[in-house]
């Protein structure tokens, strides 16, 4: 299994996705950071605090979890798209071993995305306010937000991989993740807030300590995320074992 995981890691590091997805995520998060700090002085003048602005900046880095999920999905689906999946399965020893190896690699990749986001988030909290005329401020809550960002990225890696195993087509898997994260879940949160808090990405809002109302408690949020991952795991594993390999 160690060889298989190492081989899958080498595969994940081949090509451009291992660097352009984190860079794309950093770009998106920096734009959001810029938005918060450029309006920071005005927000403070109208009653907010530098601490609250700093927490918003930290929270902006939660977007990296979407890129971690896309990475996980691409790590699986590009094998199908390129025709590599046949050799991957044959050399893995069994389909479930390959399924497990890709999940491990996606989880580690998610954690690395999380570390990257937490590091840049911390730098943003301390360095971004200065040029915009107010003092940087952070507290324990800021640290918890950044830890939440790390945790969400770590969990998003395998989530993306599982979606990849279920959907198999790269474009469809990436679109599924984007639509669920950016349209379906937020849309349902507006329409049915009581039910939508049990959706995966809305539960993640609790983990990175969003300030929206009607969110789950942290333990409940982790339980809901675990349930989604477990459901996707069992569906994905069953499909991997039973469907013909294209």
């Amino acid at each position: 299994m160690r060889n298989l995981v190492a081989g899958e890691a080498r595969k994940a590091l081949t090509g451009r996705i291992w660097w352009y997805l984190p860079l794309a995520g950093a770009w998106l998060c920096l734009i959001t950071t810029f938005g918060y700090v450029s309006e920071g002085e005005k927000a403070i003048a109208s009653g907010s605090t530098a601490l609250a602005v700093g927490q918003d900046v930290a929270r902006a880095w939660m977007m990296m979890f979407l890129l971690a999920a896309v990475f996980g999905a691409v790590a699986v689906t590009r094998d199908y798209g390129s025709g590599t999946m046949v050799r991957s399965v044959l050399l893995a020893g069994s389909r479930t071993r390959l399924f497990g190896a890709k999940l491990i690699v996606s989880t580690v990749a998610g954690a690395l995305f999380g570390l990257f986001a937490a590091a840049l988030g911390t730098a943003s909290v301390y360095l971004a306010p200065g040029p915009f005329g107010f003092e940087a401020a952070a507290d324990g809550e800021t640290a918890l937000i950044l830890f939440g960002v790390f945790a969400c990225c770590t969990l998003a890696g395998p989530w993306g991989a599982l979606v990849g195993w279920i959907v198999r087509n790269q474009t469809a898997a990436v679109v599924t993740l984007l639509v669920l994260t950016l349209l379906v879940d937020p849309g349902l949160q507006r329409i049915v807030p009581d039910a939508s808090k049990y959706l995966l990405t809305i539960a993640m809002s609790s983990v990175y300590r969003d300030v929206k109302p009607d969110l789950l408690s942290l333990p409940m949020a982790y339980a809901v995320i675990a349930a989604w991952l477990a459901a996707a795991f069992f569906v994905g594993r069953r499909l991997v074992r039973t469907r013909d390999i294209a």
Partner: protein
Amino acid sequence: MTTNDTAVSLSGLTKTYKGVTAVDDLTVDIRAGRVTGLLGRNGAGKTTTLRMLLGLAAPTAGTATILGRPYAELPDAAHRVGVSMDGMGGVPGATVRSELRIWCTVLGLPATRADEVMEITGIADAATRPVKGCSTGMRQRLALAAALLADPEVLVLDEPANGLDPDGIRWLRDTLRSLAGEGRTVLVSSHQLAELEQTVDDVVIMQRTLRYAGTLADLTGHGATRLEDRFFELVDPAATSPAAENLAATAPTTPTPSTAAPAAVRTPERITSRA
């Protein structure tokens, strides 16, 4: 393993996709240490058969074993069976060398093995070339190089001559003969009859159903008739030419789709269809 051993065994193998039968009740044993050609037209079910043999597609009925076990249950299968399937692609962004090194890592082989198989398959000069930029022939050689990484006992090659230029085809022929000479079993699917006639020891002809299983020598009357003529006679009896009919009359009884089984009686070798 000797040539009397069965390397690949298919029994009643059937695959149906949404009501369309791609492979129908295929039963055949393939001997070890021989080059066996799996012949058929495009869409005859050759690739589907190989995919079922390798556990990539589940048979609707029947069984397929390789070295005595289904591929998924074969101990150390990745080291014992080398595979090149039509449509297998490279890892996106990989060079020829890095692609092979990825598979070396998966197989637990030293990275130097990648260089060895590049030498064997004649792609050492292209080691740093992106796989995406390789010609079709170069990719075929790369696929064979990947199949040879673990020095397998059995090679399963799906249309390995596709896209090869004359030099490549000659190289492939020599390589396959050389591999069989080392005692390996080579199962190669193709529709390039003239080429396979110079390469294989045994022949399995299928057109959804089994049409022939036996030695090339028996099929062609030890060269008295061309493989191509016998092939068309078997897969499309209505289109048989008068010349082929004459030859058929002198050759051993040809199994028709419904009577493929008697080939087992007719042919003494272990590559036989089984009732």
